């Protein structure tokens, strides 16, 4: 992979702007509510701006790794600070930027322990950015855990339903995952003979098949936990239900992508033979997740549970795309990561708004909301339609690519997954109809609709969805620049 060093450390700035933000927050007073929010919004906005910049400024004709920064970190152990942007992570950096920015806006009404909230949220985001941009396994894992752990406190303090249980479960589950990841990573490190954590260098090493199989399966399950690969998904609905709005947005929108991205970036990238050996299993689990998710979601009555299970299903699609190991599949998979991230963020922010008003998420209790707050419902319905794979939304293209690729490689699983779409539609519309298109619930008559300011973040998300729904090529052409060499390298 060719590396093009950068003139200005854009990525480091992207990484540091949340850090700086939270350091400033540390010294602000709890009472300066607005200032705190403003600071976090600025730092989030800055990183969003940089993310957009890298997304746009990435030179597709040049390809390879761009904006590369590389410093010796710990020579003795071959740790390097090595960040860069390519087609694989550019969309995800953008996704992170958008979600965190909208997330901060969404939580603008937060009253309780504002300062700490934004501190932890920014810490989490730092981790996410780091994972997406780094090419050194040490830092990869470091950021990975930074991204995972603050979730515990975020859910614990600002969460809602069964939060103690959910927070503990989620954290331990993910940590158990990293309990598998560490040995996997270290196995590669120590058997490579290079004693370096630099992934690009490790990619050059030809590991013995046995090592690859072991390392791959460990990392697949380790990261798979975070990607809610069936049957390691149960933390996700519980966690999402418990988490506060913006955290659910970040978690379902971005963190789950961390898992799938890590599977791609570390497991598949470093152990191609291991991937070939295990991909049948991957495909099977992915399909199971897709089908399973929709069917279980069909029986849920809590909006967030419904979304949680739809995420399980959609992440299954991502995983299926990865399992195909074809250019189309990977394009679709990465596109789906992006699209689903935005979509779920929209879902949760819509639900969050509704929940803050009505204090219920029971789909029967909120009937006919679209009479009372049409805009808020419109947000949710858009997301639901996107989830049902309606054309004109970004996720449609992603699913299209994945399914076509999947049917080529795994006809049975592919067709099953496609068939699951019917239930998917049923499941989305059931929720929409029950909680929005119905007799309005008199209890909620007095609630007012989304204010333009609070509507802004949701509009941003919808805009993104529709933009990429109409111009998918913008995304795919970028992703392709990385995926094609990736596949050839495997």
């Amino acid at each position: 992979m060719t590396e093009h060093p950068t003139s200005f450390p854009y990525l480091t700035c992207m990484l540091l702007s949340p850090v700086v933000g939270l350091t400033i927050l540390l010294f602000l007073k709890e009472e300066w509510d607005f200032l705190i929010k403003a600071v976090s919004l600025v730092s989030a906005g800055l990183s969003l701006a940089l993310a957009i910049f890298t997304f746009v400024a990435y030179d597709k004709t040049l390809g390879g790794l761009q904006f590369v920064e590389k410093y010796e970190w710990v020579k003795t152990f071959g740790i390097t600070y090595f960040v860069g942007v390519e087609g694989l992570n550019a969309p995800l950096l953008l996704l992170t930027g958008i979600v965190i920015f909208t997330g901060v806006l969404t939580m603008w009404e937060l009253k309780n322990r504002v300062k700490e909230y934004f501190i932890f949220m920014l810490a989490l985001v730092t981790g996410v950015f780091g994972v997406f941009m780094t090419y050194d396994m040490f830092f990869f894992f470091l950021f990975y855990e930074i991204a995972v752990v603050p979730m515990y406190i975020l859910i614990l303090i600002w969460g809602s339903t069964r939060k103690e249980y959910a927070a503990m479960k989620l954290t331990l589950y993910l940590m158990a995952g990293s309990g598998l990841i560490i040995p996997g990573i270290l196995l590669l490190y120590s058997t490579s003979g290079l004693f370096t954590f630099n992934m690009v260098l490790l990619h050059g090493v030809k590991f013995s098949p046995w090592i690859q199989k072991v390392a791959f399966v460990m990392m697949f399950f380790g990261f798979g936990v975070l990607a809610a690969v069936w049957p390691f998904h149960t933390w996700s609905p519980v966690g999402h239900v418990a988490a506060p709005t913006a955290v659910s947005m970040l978690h379902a929108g971005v963190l789950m992508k961390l898992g799938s991205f890590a599977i791609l970036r570390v497991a598949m990238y470093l152990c191609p033979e291991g991937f070939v050996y295990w991909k049948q299993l991957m495909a099977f689990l992915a399909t199971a997740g897709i089908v399973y998710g929709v069917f279980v979601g069909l029986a849920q009555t809590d909006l967030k549970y419904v979304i949680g299970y739809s995420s399980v299903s959609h992440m299954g699609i991502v995983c299926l795309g990865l399992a195909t190991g074809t250019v189309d599949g990977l394009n679709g998979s990465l596109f789906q990561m992006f699209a689903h991230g935005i979509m779920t963020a929209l879902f949760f922010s819509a639900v969050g708004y509704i929940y803050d008003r009505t204090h219920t998420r029971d789909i029967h209790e909120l009937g006919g909301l679209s009479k009372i707050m049409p805009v808020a419902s419109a947000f949710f319905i858009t997301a639901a339609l996107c989830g049902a794979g309606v054309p004109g939304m970004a996720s449609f293209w992603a699913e299209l690519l994945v399914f076509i690729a999947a049917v080529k490689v795994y006809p049975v699983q592919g067709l099953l997954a496609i068939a699951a779409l019917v239930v998917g539609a049923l499941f989305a519309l059931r929720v929409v109809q029950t909680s929005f298109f119905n007799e309005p619930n008199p209890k909620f008559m007095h609630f007012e609709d989304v204010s333009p300011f609070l509507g802004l973040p949701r509009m941003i998300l919808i805009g993104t969805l529709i933009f990429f729904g109409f111009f998918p090529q913008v995304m795919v052409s970028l992703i392709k620049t990385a995926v094609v060499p990736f596949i050839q390298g495997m």
Partner: protein
Amino acid sequence: MGSCDPVLLGCLLTVFLPLSAFALIMIFTWRYHKLSMAISLVASTIPLLIAWYFFFTLDVKQPIIYNFNWLVSDQVKVPFGFLLDPTSVLMFVIVATISWLVQIYSIGYMGGDPGFGRYYADLSLFALAMLGLVISSGLLQLYIFWELVGLASYLLIGFWYEKFSASEAGKKAFVVTRFGDIGFFMGLVFLTLYFGSLDIATVNSAALTAKMPPWLITTSALLIFCGIMGKSAQFPIHVWLPDAMEGPTPVSALLHSATMVAAGVFLLTRLFPLFAASATAMSVVLVISTITLLLSSTIGMVATDIKQVWAYSTVSQLGFMAMGLSAAGLAAGTLFPGYYHLTTHAAFKALLFLCSGVFIHHFGTNDFFVMATQGGRKLLIPMATITIAALALAGIFPFAGFFSKEAILGALAHLPNKMWLVLGLFGAFLTAYYAFRVIFVMLFPKEKYDKYHLETDPHAHAPAHSHGHGPGPGFTHDDAHIHPDAKPGHEHDESGHGAGHGHDEPHGVPWVMSFPLLVLAGFTLILGFCQGSLEKYLLGESAPHHIEYGLLVSAVSCAFGGIALAWFDWGRRGAKCVGFISYVPVLENFFIQKWYMDHFWRWFLNTFIYGIFSRAFTYNDRRVVDGGVDAVAFSTVGSGRLLSFIQTAFLQYNLLFMVLVLAGVGIYLLMGR
């Protein structure tokens, strides 16, 4: 894409005007009714002009194709483009015209409705999707617009969403058609596996299909036909269409009679060569369409809701078109008869609906018995036009329906097995009967209707069933998807669009509503005589038109027979006003229950989707998967509690333990050396 080519420009405008209209209204102007209406009208008028311009001036003997890359992944390539050939242009004209007329009509019909703006936004969305579908150059693009059409229909059917049955119907429509679309999509995937590209021209090129393995052709053709079944409401997934009548009547006229449901048949014609390449597929199509024809016409005989009657007649006519096409495919015929019938049907069925719309709007009921008793025939224009339309539907010379039906029966006649012809004729007979049942009732109202009507009001039947299959624990009423008796009731007009208008208008019909009627009536009259030219336009040459008199006679006699029977039952002075069918109560009830199709699907849904899969998976998720995780956690803590007993309070036990372990290790080392 900023090309100066006027044709291309036209195509682009056709797609992007409605799109922008939809966006504008949805985002900004949906609060301002008049403005939204204006925008939408503009955005539908220009495509209309373009359509007719193309139709008359453009020479499309050689298909005109534009393609742009929309999405280019590795092997998957989705072009965005336009294909202008006779088939698409004709459909283009039909769609543009009727949607324009309906938009005009809706000004009167929907006036004063709170959701007026949203209504027009949805109409624009539909126009966008339908037009895009018609002139799209690739199958994937077609599929995309196909889905969008479904979305639009979902929104429009559920337009009065605060009425539960309406939103139910919308969801039902979406899901059921989606069910077919999945098949369509799979078919496309299969085709891509073979062709790589899904260019319609490529797929249709006989050379390629010849090389294709037969099983692949058959499979993909049948899968695609699933999509057609969904959209064109063929048996057994026709169930959504009658419920779709929950939507506003103009919507029913536009989507659920003239254009959208015809999209399925359009696709059939679009891919006629592909289908024709597989006899198996075509015979399946023939069987299914025949069943559809008979089933729906029989149900049409007993329905008392005027829109239901026309809905079922639509289903039957669609079946009839499919019959024509498949027969042609089997007997090496042309796609003309089916397509021709599609055209004429679009005209007179839209007319039927719009007329009924006038009545409904005026009397505030859907029940034509009530309309009749309240003096429906006083409304002259609609009464006249509806009669014309009914004549056309029944296939009486010189109305359009006559010619197209002739054509189709001709195609059927070419089949070696004459049974199909007979069935077709029988269908025609039934059609004539139920059409004129309505007409006669309206024309010659009798007093006893109310009594009769009260007796056999379908509301009196079925209701027990609908909520009878209680969705199991955990599934509450919102899961009751398919209401066997989800029919638009009277409450519709009170709660729904009746806001502020309806009965109070003095009399007659606003011009915006009567004008489209007249136009359509005109079409119904003239279309019949354009057969030759249309055929020439479509196929390039007009086949020598030898009329088989036997067939002609039998057909006409069937039609008149039906009308006569209807007259005997309903029209003549002192008629018993009971359908002949009621002499066989079992059969009648069977028909009234719509062959129990809804009950079947309801049962299917409850048993399998909700009952077995969903519940089982949920249980598994709670107990097995999640339970396993929790079990691991608990066992960890438990083992900690157990191990904590090693640390006794008593010093010497600890020492003993220590010494023993040390001794053990020592022995291990000494042995292992």
